[in-house]
Structures are given as C-alpha cells and as structure tokens.
C-alpha cells in the first residue's frame, strides 16, 4: 500500500479492498514511528483525520467517490485549515488555530481526501533547507545528516519516506521543485494564477503559487485536477475553463523539441548533477525528442532580482503580524510601538527578520527606483528570455538544483550561499511559468538528483505527459530510501 500510486489506492478503496480508516491508520502509525527522527510534520490530529476517513468510507460505500476520496494527503503548514493549528513554521503563529479553510484545503475536503497533518516548512516559506523552521529542521530521509531542501521540505520528506500518499507545497522561488529534487520525488509549480492563494499565508504575492508533491507525474495530475480552478476570493486567480491534467499522459513524445539553456549547464553546476541530467536528456532522445541549445541571457540576474522583489513584498505582507488580532504578542511591553517591536522581534526568526529588513530598505524613500523599480524592469527581461526561447522549443529542461542535498548546518551562516541554491528555479517564478522537478538519478553522494522541466504558460498537461513518459521508461521515481 505504501508504494501504491494514487490511482491504485483509489481503485483499492472503491473495490473495498481497504478502507480509508485502515489506510489513514497505516500512515498515522508510520508517522508516529518515524516522525520523531524525520520531523516532517509539525501537527497531526489523529481524531480529525480518522473522522474524515470515516466520512470518506461512507461516501465510497454510497458510490459517491471521486478519484481522491479516502486518500490521506499531507498539507503544508502554510495552508489555513479550519480547526487545525496553522503555524507557517513560525513562533509568531505557534498557537494559531485557523478559523477558516484555504481554498486548496476546501477543494481537498470536497474531494473527500483525508487531511493527514500539517507538514514542516521554512519559517514563512523563507528558506531552501528547512532549517529556518521554528519547529526544528526536517531530515532528508535518504541521509538524515542532509537537508531535505525548502521551503516545502516537510512535504517532500513525507512523500519520500512514505509518511503520506501525497502532499501539497508552495513555490515562491523554488520551494516545491528544490525539495522535490533533493528528496527524490516529483513536484509541480503551476502557472501563476492557476491555484488559488486564498488562505495560503502570503510571502511574496506576485510569485507565490501552490502545487502538488507526489511520487509520480501521474499522481501529480490527479492532485492538480483537484487543486486548480478559479476562485473569486483570490484577485489573481485566473478565470479559465476547467481542464483534465491527466488527459495527455499517454501521448508519445515523438517530435518533442527540448530546449537546453546553456546558462543552466555552465560553471556552478555540480558534475554529478550534470551527469544525471544529461543521461535523462539522452533518455528523452530515445523517446523521440530532439534537443536544441537555447539561451536565457538574463537568468543570472534572477537571484538578485528575486532578493529585491520577494523581500519587498514580504515586508509588506508580514506587516499584518503586529500582536493585535492574532499570533504572538510579547509578554512584556511599554507603549504601543514597543508592543509591535517586541512582538515582531520575538515572534519572527532571523531569516524572516533579515528579509523584512531587505524589503523595508529597498522600498524606502530614495532607494525605490534604484532597487525595486530596476528589479521589476529586469524581471520583464527575464520573462522575455523565456518567450523568445519558446519560439525554438516546446519545453525547457535542466537541473533543478546545482547540487544534491547538502548537510544540515553547511550553509547556515551565509545567507548568500543559501540563496544561490535556487539559481535555476527562481527565474521561472519571476516569469510566472509552470515548472516541475522529477527524479533522474543519484549524485556522487548517493543522494537524489532532480530534472527540471519548464513549460510555457498553461502547459501543465503537456509537462505531465513529458514527465510521465520518462517515468514509464525509467524507475528513478519509484526508488525509496532504505531502512525506513
């Protein structure tokens, strides 16, 4: 059961070979046994999960099941879920019980999925290693001395360690794709605006996008079918016809043109990662694809541009945490300003404060044009690079991350080194394009390597097809960490 696909689990549930109660209990027992070491979950609530499972079993017995009914899904702790503690990995929200459901949570509930628990994450999704969580770092299930990536590291770990059937994540600069790569799972960040941000705690609103994390592209398609769709409560949600993201999975890849950005294979890329990615490209050629070299000349600027725009938006978004309406309030303070300053200083961790400081600075009087506006102009150049590239190819491929999982503590003291680990993923968020990562082998240290697939706007079904055909021909995605 632990290694079954969502399709197989759904069939087993509908054929009454297993009940949702049994399946949920199986995962809850595994979480109880393994989570103390891996720290993938911040909160579980067996009673609530089991109640949902019983309702799902009722639906199934009445023949009212949809594809995810009864399937236990882990939710990143950035999504508000009514009655669930929702921390966003922060002391600021350590005791925050959400009074309403995020749109994504509501969709999973309507589909009859079971909320298995809330997964650990970098504080307010700011981090690439999960080490900034107030609730402690998540361990990589392939080697517990290594990081799982971030910020959706808890979800990536939970999927890889079989502590859930599937999970959700969010991706502002690579937070679905990078941990998916480092934990050897599949993850998809959809086109900006495809999944509603309502009830998803905001980091950088023009970049944040939720998406599925699972063990295969086929599973991702089923999850995205539930998550995607217009929501009037998110002003950036796009009004588009509902589509079936699994519709093209079985199409052959003959004639597919893959663009390889020369900048993604230049200095800075680990040779072991390059080896695995090149082998995946060779596999795609066998499947009928052709390869063309492309250039994304401004992509090298994506890290500096991102570290102006994302902190600027974050400094504004996080001003809501003031110790008045919800969240942490300092135990002792003098006047109102002192209460704000102490509550925020004590409630936020170091990385969050750092980004609020950067954002405040680049938006302050006298620096706005030089930093914020300049970054927005270069953002357009970066997006234009992709538009030009897609005239020559159908899809872009490259590494997800320059290295495999690094060790816990290895990059802790140097924020700039940590920021550079997202060098291949950030440009995709700036352009608003869909991107995914799928496992394509192992590096020199026997840790997973991720292949990044970048599609044109709204090409998710095609990307899932491209990933699925590779997963039919290879078995990297079905490898599991040993000893768990």
């Amino acid at each position, binding site marked *: 059961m632990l290694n079954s696909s969502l399709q197989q689990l759904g069939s087993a549930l509908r054929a009454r070979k297993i009940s949702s109660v049994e399946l949920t209990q199986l995962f809850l027992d595994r979480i109880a046994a393994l989570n103390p070491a891996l720290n993938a979950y911040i909160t579980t609530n067996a009673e609530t999960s089991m109640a949902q499972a019983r309702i799902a079993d009722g639906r199934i017995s009445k023949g009212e099941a949809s594809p995810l009914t009864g399937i236990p899904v882990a939710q990143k702790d950035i999504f508000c879920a009514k009655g669930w503690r929702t921390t966003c990995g922060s002391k600021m929200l350590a005791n*925050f*019980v959400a*009074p309403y459901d995020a749109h994504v949570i509501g969709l999973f509930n309507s589909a009859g999925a079971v909320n298995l628990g809330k997964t650990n994450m970098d504080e307010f999704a700011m981090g690439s290693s999960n080490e900034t969580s107030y609730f402690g770092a998540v361990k990589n299930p392939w080697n517990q001395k290594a990081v799982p990536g971030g910020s959706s590291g808890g979800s990536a770990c939970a999927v890889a360690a079989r502590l859930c059937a599937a999970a959700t994540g969010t991706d502002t600069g690579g937070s679905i794709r990078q941990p998916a790569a480092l934990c050897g799972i599949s993850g998809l960040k959809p086109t900006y*605006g495809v999944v509603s941000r309502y009830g998803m705690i905001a980091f950088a609103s*023009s*970049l944040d996008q939720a998406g599925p994390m699972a063990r295969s592209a086929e599973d991702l398609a089923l999850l995205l079918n539930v998550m995607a769709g217009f929501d*009037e409560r998110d*002003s*950036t949600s*796009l009004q588009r016809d509902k589509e079936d993201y699994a519709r093209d999975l079985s199409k052959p890849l003959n004639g597919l043109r893959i663009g390889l950005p020369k900048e993604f294979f230049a200095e800075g890329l680990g040779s072991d990662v390059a080896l695995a990615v090149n082998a995946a490209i060779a596999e795609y050629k066998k499947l009928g694809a052709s390869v063309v070299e492309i250039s994304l000349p401004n992509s090298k*600027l994506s*890290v*500096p*541009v991102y*570290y*102006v725009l994302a902190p600027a938006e974050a400094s504004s978004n996080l*001003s809501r945490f003031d*110790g*008045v*309406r*919800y*969240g*942490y*309030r300092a135990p002792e*303070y*003098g*006047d*109102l300003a*002192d*209460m*704000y*300053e*102490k509550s*925020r*200083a004590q409630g936020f961790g170091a990385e969050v*404060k*750092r980004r*609020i*400081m*950067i954002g*405040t*600075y680049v938006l*302050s009087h006298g620096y706005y044009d*030089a*930093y914020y*506006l*300049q*970054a*927005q*102009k*270069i*953002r*357009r*150049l970066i*997006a234009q690079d992709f538009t030009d590239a897609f005239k020559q190819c159908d899809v872009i491929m490259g590494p997800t991350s320059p290295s495999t999982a690094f060790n816990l503590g290895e990059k802790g003291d*140097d*924020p*700039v080194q940590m*920021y550079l680990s997202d060098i291949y993923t950030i440009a995709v968020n700036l352009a*608003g394009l869909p991107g995914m990562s799928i496992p394509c082998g192992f590096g020199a240290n026997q840790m997973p390597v991720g292949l990044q697939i970048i599609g044109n706007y709204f090409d998710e079904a095609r990307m899932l097809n491209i990933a699925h055909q590779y997963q039919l021909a290879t078995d990297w995605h079905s490898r599991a960490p040993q000893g768990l």
Partner: protein
Amino acid sequence: MSITDADVRKIALLARLAMSETETEIARAQLAGIFDLIAEMQAVDTQGIAPMSHAQDVSQRLREDVITETDQRALFQSIAPQVEAGLYLVPQVIE
C-alpha cells in the same frame, strides 16, 4: 555598497523590529553581503523597459457592491491575544 549601523537601526525602526546592539552588528554584516549580490542589477541597461509587477497581464475584477461576508467577530476574536467587550486591547495611545 556600504551600510552603517545607523542605516540598520533606521530600517529596523521602519520595520518595527526591536534589535539589540549585537543583532544590529550581525544584521549589518549580512545585509552588506546581500546588497553586494543585489548590486549586480545596477549594471543592466533598462532604459525603455516597462516594470513588470505581475506575472499575468490581467486587470482587477469588479463585483457587485453587496455584502458577501457573514459576521464572525466572536470566532475571529477568539484567537486574539487580548480582547474585551468585543474590542481588541492594545496599550493606551491617547491620554
């Protein structure tokens, strides 16, 4: 670029973050490194380029001006640090 302790204190004040002397010193060093990274942008010629604030060219939707929310005051105040008689309590600001 160079950034001084006074700059850091001013940003911290604007951001409403209390900061000790030691924290100010650490923040100055780390922010200097980050601003060196950001400075790479300055060399780029962006004359005539329109700023891109959003991934999709969409305009704000409008809706009918009708009440859509129900009153959930008690629920929302149940998670507040300090409330009294339906009001959020903060230190006195007017004598």
